[in-house]
């Protein structure tokens, strides 16, 4: 075995330098690397460019804390627990952040292209919509399309040259510096096993230049290799690993714990204003570390969220009531 890939929570956040482009595991309010997100906020990261298949609660935290300059994705909110992203909404209204809109499938295919080394993907989704309105190329309007990490064009149209299938949209590969994943298990050498829907994790891990995996538990590599067909991401695609139980809270993790709906409702309700966000961050993020955060949540709350191991979800918690 080569040198250890283990790092700490603080070291994980230190890898992300100001101005980096960043993406995440998970889906909306599921398996988001919240413990690292909170640490990024504590370390006062600036000018981040988030490129995501979809956003969620973690986006709202990073944007609310002023860490983000550009959010490039298709959706942000808290599902059932907050109907839109109040922080993104406020900051795009005040022109404090740039939002570049693509469709969900376009974002997915952009990551798939980056993951297989292609410069772009081709699709027929969203033809005729304002997603392709040339006036609404926000990174272009800001003069940021340098053709290096940010593509020269938001999209291009072409006609199918092979089968005459008509208009096609070419969309640029999603090139990102760092992917931060939050999963159930990782081995000492980096092999990842995701339980349940794996969302877009394999593609984002492969697309990024640096991939950090935060797991509920680090397990012996040989344990995962006994059933290689159940593994999701290969060892060498992962650069750094760390163990952080309940690291996805308040988002949920299949088989481990449910979404803390009450927490997200509280966050959504309190962070419509910047003052509200700052107050929430003061209470839950600044001056805390992961252990003190969990202590503040308390055992009874965590046990309520804990998944039944046969069902993979909690039978005590549904709908954040």
């Amino acid at each position, binding site marked *: 075995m080569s040198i250890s890939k283990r790092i700490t929570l603080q070291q994980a956040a230190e890898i992300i330098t100001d101005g980096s482009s960043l993406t995440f595991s998970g889906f*909306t309010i599921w*398996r988001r690397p919240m413990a690292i997100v909170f640490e990024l906020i504590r370390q006062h990261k600036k000018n981040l460019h988030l490129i995501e298949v979809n956003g969620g609660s973690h986006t709202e935290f990073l944007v609310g804390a002023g860490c983000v300059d550009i959010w490039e994705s298709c959706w942000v909110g808290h599902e*059932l627990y907050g109907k839109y992203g109040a922080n993104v909404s406020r900051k795009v209204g005040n022109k404090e952040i740039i939002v570049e809109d693509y469709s969900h499938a376009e974002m997915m295919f952009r990551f798939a292209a980056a993951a297989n080394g292609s410069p772009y993907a081709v699709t027929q989704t969203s033809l*005729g919509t304002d997603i392709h309105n040339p006036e609404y190329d926000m990174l272009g309007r800001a003069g940021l399309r340098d053709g290096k990490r940010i593509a020269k064009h938001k999209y291009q149209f072409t006609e199918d040259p092979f089968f005459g299938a008509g*208009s096609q949209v070419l969309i640029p590969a999603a090139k990102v510096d760092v992917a931060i994943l939050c999963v159930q298990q990782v081995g000492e050498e980096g092999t990842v096993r995701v339980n349940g829907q794996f969302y877009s994790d394999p593609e984002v891990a492969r697309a990024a230049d640096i991939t950090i995996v935060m797991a509920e538990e680090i397990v012996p590599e040989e344990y995962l290799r006994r059933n290689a067909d159940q593994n999701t991401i290969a060892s060498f695609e992962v650069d750094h690993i760390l163990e952080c139980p309940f690291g996805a809270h308040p988002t949920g993790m299949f088989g481990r714990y449910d979404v803390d709906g009450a927490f997200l409702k509280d966050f959504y309700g309190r962070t419509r204003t910047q003052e509200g966000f700052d107050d929430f961050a003061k209470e839950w993020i600044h001056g805390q570390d992961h252990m003190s955060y969990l202590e503040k949540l308390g055992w009874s709350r965590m046990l309520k969220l804990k998944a039944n191991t046969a069902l993979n979800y909690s039978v005590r918690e549904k*709908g954040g009531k």
Partner: protein
Amino acid sequence: MATEYASPEEYGLADLMCCAAAREVQDNEVVFAGTGLPMVAIMLAQKTHAPNLKLIFEAGTLDGRPPEIPTSVGDARCEMGASRSSGLYDAFSIAQRGYVDLGFLGGAEVDEYGNVNTTCIGDYLNPELRLTGSGGNPDINSFAKRTVFIMAHEKRRFTPNVSYITSPGWRVKKWPGGEFVHRRELYGSAYRGGPSAVISTAGVFRFDEQSGKIYLDTCHPGKTPDEIKEMCYFDLDISRVNGETLPPNREELHIIHEVLDPEQIFVPMVKKG
């Protein structure tokens, strides 16, 4: 069970819309579900007249048979009993490949050609209110043979000009100029259909295949065509009204409230007097 329709005091608007949505599903269809009332509607259809429907959750579940309603499409409940638990690349590839018959979607605004906005209110470059953004709305609407929109009915939401076309209706913008053309012209061999119904809190609306224009199909009990016409900023065609929306039957209400959503997360229960 013989069809026994519930009386008006036994159901609420969400029940009515959910049952109307479920009736859009035909057996054996591949149906794409978004979070919320659509999930209840599809699973209601799965447990009544469409036991062989194939349910796809956007987050990556293929042919799911969850025993109870998931809280969102990322939920652990989605993949219980599924043919395959996978990811978004598979879900969208399957949609683009043409497997999906029907998708259920939502929207903040709709125009008379079924173009839907979920992105912002007001000028996109200076938004009054930024909303969630597209999510998979345009993707499902581009790829599925039929789509059904479930919406709250407020006059400002039924508008001749949506603030932003997030999801493509029957007449869409051709870029770079932005002139409106029939979607058939843009989608070429990928053209499979488009929006087939809007189910609002006031009635059920459909689209004329030739003109692509919306018309009122049925009024929810208690509403008249004239009242509903008055609830739209565009000139609603009420010449083809086909009576009232069928109320829920007792079996449907039982499944919604006792089996699928006993916690009343998506469908509130009407208090019985």
